[in-house]
């Protein structure tokens, strides 16, 4: 094969490899249910400086839009459907989210904390 062609193929493979890196890395999942226009749990705690996957399950018969200004995320979740949103890495703090179609009831907080080191079992 020609050298320029090899270079192009190599560049594409490298680009795809960098591109797919985030897809292949394991990411912690956190599940949130949306029922009767309320988030359950309304408060979740995630580790700081790590990307996490939020799986939101809309169990209502109407769509809802998961919205958060502080997380910079908004996604429509259709009735009886799930949606996946990646958040992070985030600094420690509280990040509010709400359902745009029912902002008075569908409200929640993502609390970001540094992971505490688990104490070793003495036994």
């Amino acid at each position, binding site marked *: 094969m020609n050298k320029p062609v090899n270079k192009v193929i190599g560049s594409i493979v490298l680009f795809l490899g960098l591109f797919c890196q985030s897809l292949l890395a394991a990411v912690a999942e956190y599940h949130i249910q949306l029922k009767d226009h309320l988030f359950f749990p309304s408060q979740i705690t995630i580790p700081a400086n790590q*990307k996490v996957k939020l799986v939101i399950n809309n169990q209502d018969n109407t*769509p809802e*839009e998961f919205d958060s200004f502080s997380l910079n995320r908004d*996604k*429509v979740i259709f009735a009886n459907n799930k949606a996946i949103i990646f958040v*992070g890495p985030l600094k420690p703090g509280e990040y509010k989210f709400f359902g745009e*179609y029912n902002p008075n009831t569908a409200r929640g907080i993502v609390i970001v904390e540094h992971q505490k080191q688990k104490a070793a079992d003495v036994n």
Partner: protein
Amino acid sequence: MLINTVILFLRDALPIFVLVVYLYVHLTATNLWLLLCAGVGALLSLIYINQIHLISQLFDGNGIELSLWICQVFVYLLALVLGYGLNRNRSSNKNYLYWTAGLMVSLTLVSKGSNFVLYFDGYFSQSNAIQSMLLGTFLGLGICLSLAILLYLTAQWLKQQLGPWSTWLLVHIYVTGQLVNALPLLVQVDFLDSSATAWSSQYFVSIEFDRLFNVLFGYQAAPSIAQVIVYALALLTPLLIFYWLKLHSASHSGIK
């Protein structure tokens, strides 16, 4: 809900108004062209909404984000076509510029207008929200129209003083900002890694101006490094290329 409706207008309606005003001043086309674009865009938006369940299932549930991102990329590329059209001084063959601008308006209506339809569809199911929604609509519409008139007058003045490149620059800055604003969509679906914040200017700019500047030129109070890099490249690269093309054609005609 009233506040949410107003914010929706600032976030999704105002970009449409800004783009239409800029293109209207830049191309000095007839009203018919605008109405046609708006009609086509509204129709495409309804088709998009009609198929949105199907689209949302594509690419492992990331279809909506990817389709919106692709819309923004196309709008950006079409703006470059407009700039290229200015480089070519031939007065014939200018019709493609109207088609280009029309497509830009239509695609923007699809990406921004679909949010409207989803939003109002969600709210119409609640009878007690209609009054606050209508009030929010009038407020939001009033804000958008006021700003559109101000921008129209400003753009007209700029075009008279500095020529059509000034209005194209307004379009270019606007579409670059919208392109960068769409980057979080890719982060949301993990197609792009979230990068560190480049700086934070949230204490220097009030939230009202934050929204306005975000629409006009993609201002972010705390942009990521990726957003800054994409913004700089997307803004400056075409300017350098068009400048080089202009110099090249000037020197070429000088040789003749």
